[in-house]
Structure formats: C-alpha cells, structure tokens
C-alpha cells in the first residue's frame, strides 16, 4: 500500500514539475531604471504625476509578471498608471476575482482599463463580464474570448492586438471569435482610430506584421509559438503605440 502511494506521489511530483514551470523574464532586459512598487499581490508602476487613470494588466499563463515590465514601463511613461496583479502559480485563472480587491486598494484611481496577454486576457474578459461598469476599455494582446466569455453587448471599447506569426493564438482564431465582442473594426493604421465614432462600442483589431506571441512580453521563446520577423523592441513599440492611441481615443469621448 505504502509502495503504491509512494509511486503515485512521485508521479504527482513529476507532473507538477513538468506542468507548473513559469517563463522567466529576460534578465538582461530588466534594467535598473524601471521604478515600480511590488507587493506579494501586485506590481504597480506609478508615473508620479498623480494620474487617476490606470491600466490593469493580467500576465499570460505561466509567465512571470516581471516579463511585462519593459512594455508596461512605456505606458507608465505616458502618464498612465499600470497595475500588474500577481497570481498563484502565475496563472491568472486562479484569481479571477482578484481585480476587485486590488481596485479597492487604489481609491484615487477613477478610470480603469483592463487587459491581458494570452490567458491573462481571459481573466480580463472575465473581469469585464463580472463588472461591466467598472472598466472603460478592454485591451487584449494575443488572445480571444471563447463563447463562455462572450460579451458582444458590452458598452465599453475593446482593442485586440494580435501578431501575424503567433501560433498560440492565430490570426484566424482571433478573427473568427469576433462575434463574441462588440462590433469589429479592422485597422491597418492605428493612427486612424480618431476617425471612428466613440459613441458606438467597437472592437478595434490591430495586426502586428511579423510579430509573435511571446514578444508581447519579454521572456524569450515560448513552446509552440511562431518565429518573429520583427525584433522585440519593434513589437513593443507597435503594441505600446496602439495601446496609447486607443486610450487617448477613448478618453476623448
């Protein structure tokens, strides 16, 4: 009996080791210039200008949250606070209601955007479905909703940024899930977003040519992903530019 139990436990340990490994950030890209506050529950980037607008960004599944600091620092530099929740085992689905607790800790913030990469995007969709009035916009990076997270009637605006060489959330998968989000509008030039009517809920789809899944963060290569044809820096620049264009467009409502 003991021997069988021992074998079961050993197999459990092997499975745990195999399926719970997280992706570490690329060490050399974590510069000392990034100023952030970290607690066991979140990482907070404060632009230091008393901004009352915050972007809550849910990390991808099994990705260390620090892997998004290089991208999120750019957003903080544009006077938007960034809050990155930390989840058990680096899996956002283990804390789908955590956003409420975090929002309560920042009463000075009056405008919230929520978003996420990959599995983190699903957590962001869940937050919007649970509290549709809490968020002004939803920003998805390399992810898409399934039917169970559908919210086509949401009154907020959605930005979906996806990458051409992303083989984990392919362009076809993202575009074919458009019925689960507000009215789709495909943009090849994000600078033209100002031409859209802000009073009609929309999902802005923006494709990054040559980008891949892992380069939305900064954690090297990911199993099953495509090869990028642009650099990490280029993908971050385009992602950052699209996010800021979207937020400014929504703020001008």
């Amino acid at each position: 009996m003991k021997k069988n139990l021992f074998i079961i436990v050993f197999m459990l340990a092997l499975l745990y080791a195999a399926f719970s490994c997280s992706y570490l950030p690329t060490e050399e890209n974590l510069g000392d210039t990034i100023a952030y506050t970290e607690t066991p529950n979140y990482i907070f980037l404060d632009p230091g200008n008393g901004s009352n607008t915050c972007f809550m960004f849910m990390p991808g599944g099994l990705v260390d949250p620090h892997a998004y600091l290089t991208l999120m620092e750019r957003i903080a530099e544009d006077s938007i606070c960034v809050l990155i929740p930390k989840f058990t085992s680096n899996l956002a689905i283990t804390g789908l209601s955590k956003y409420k607790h975090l929002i309560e800790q920042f009463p000075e913030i009056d405008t919230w955007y929520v978003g996420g990469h990959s599995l983190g995007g699903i957590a962001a969709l869940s937050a919007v479905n649970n509290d549709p009035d809490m968020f002004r916009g939803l920003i998805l990076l390399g992810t898409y909703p399934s039917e169970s997270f559908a919210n086509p009637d949401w009154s907020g605006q959605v930005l979906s940024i996806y990458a051409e060489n992303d083989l984990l959330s392919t362009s076809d998968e993202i575009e074919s899930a458009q019925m689960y989000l507000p009215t789709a509008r495909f943009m090849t030039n994000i600078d033209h977003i100002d031409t859209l009517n802000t009073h009609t809920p929309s999902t802005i789809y923006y494709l990054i040519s040559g980008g891949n899944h892992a380069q939305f963060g900064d954690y090297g290569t990911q199993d099953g992903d495509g090869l990028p044809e642009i650099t990490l820096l280029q993908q971050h620049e385009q992602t950052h530019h699209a996010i800021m264009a979207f937020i400014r467009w929504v703020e001008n409502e």
Partner: protein
Amino acid sequence: MSKVFKYCIFMTIVLGCCTGLFAQKFGLEFNMPQGIMYQNKWGFFHDGVELSVNYRIPTEHVDCVVGINMRTIDWGSQISVSTGLSYNVADKTDLQFELHNGLALFHGKPLYAYSIGSACRFQVYHKVRFHMGLSVGARFTHCPAYKHYGSINRVFEIPIGLFMKF
C-alpha cells in the same frame, strides 16, 4: 526541465533508500502558508498552497523526517526535498524542525530555493493505523537568484496545515 527531472530522481533515491532500510511512518500534509513578511516589510498575504509527503524514521528520542514538497509561492511554483527532526513534547503534540532544499520551477532555468522552519503538530484523531491532526509553524523561504528578476525573493510565513499519518 532536465535539472528538475534529475532532482526528482535524486529525491526518489533518497526516499526509496529510506523506505527500504527502515520501518517508518508515512505522512501526507496539506499546508496553507500565510505570509506575514516579505523582504523586510510586514504584510499579511496568502502565499499559495503546499502538498507534502514524508517518511518518519523513529529513533529512541527523536524522529527523523524526510519528504517531498510541492508548493506555490510568490515567485511561482516550487518543489523541494525536506529533512527534519521531530520531538514528542507532550501527549499528542510534536515539535518539528525542518530544512527544505529545492527548486523554483522556471522553464530552462530552475532556481535554487531553500526554507528553514519549525512546526507544532497536534494530533486530533487517532486510530491504530491512521492519525490525523493540525499543524502550525513558522518558516523562512529564500530564492537567492530570483533577485535578478523580481524585488521579492524572500518571505516569512506561518504555514497552517492538516496532516495525516499512515
């Protein structure tokens, strides 16, 4: 991954030797570590869950305990092998001191992590071949190399758990 696999093999040999050489008790423990301090700051936080399996090797005055621990922690998931000494301090009450050596699980680059701590175990249910009880302790965990990635790499916790002995 290969390092993790080798580590698991090592732990298997350690525990296998123990089971083959001694008559001992087999235990299963489920812990909910509650964090009370990170780096040098006080703060209450839930620090994941832990599943431990251990073997108890009785001697005249003290029991030696070895085990495998799987847990989640601030920086992700962690697997470790534990060694410890358990003293019977009162009727149905044991005091255990333990050292964990393990790996924080990261793709391609698992990071060394260790814990030192103690726990008090209270037996609340007793049958001839099955014991069950509650435990509470104090533990310090440190993942030294994680300082290159995040600003929290050491935590102090109060593990509260449920244990079973077979």
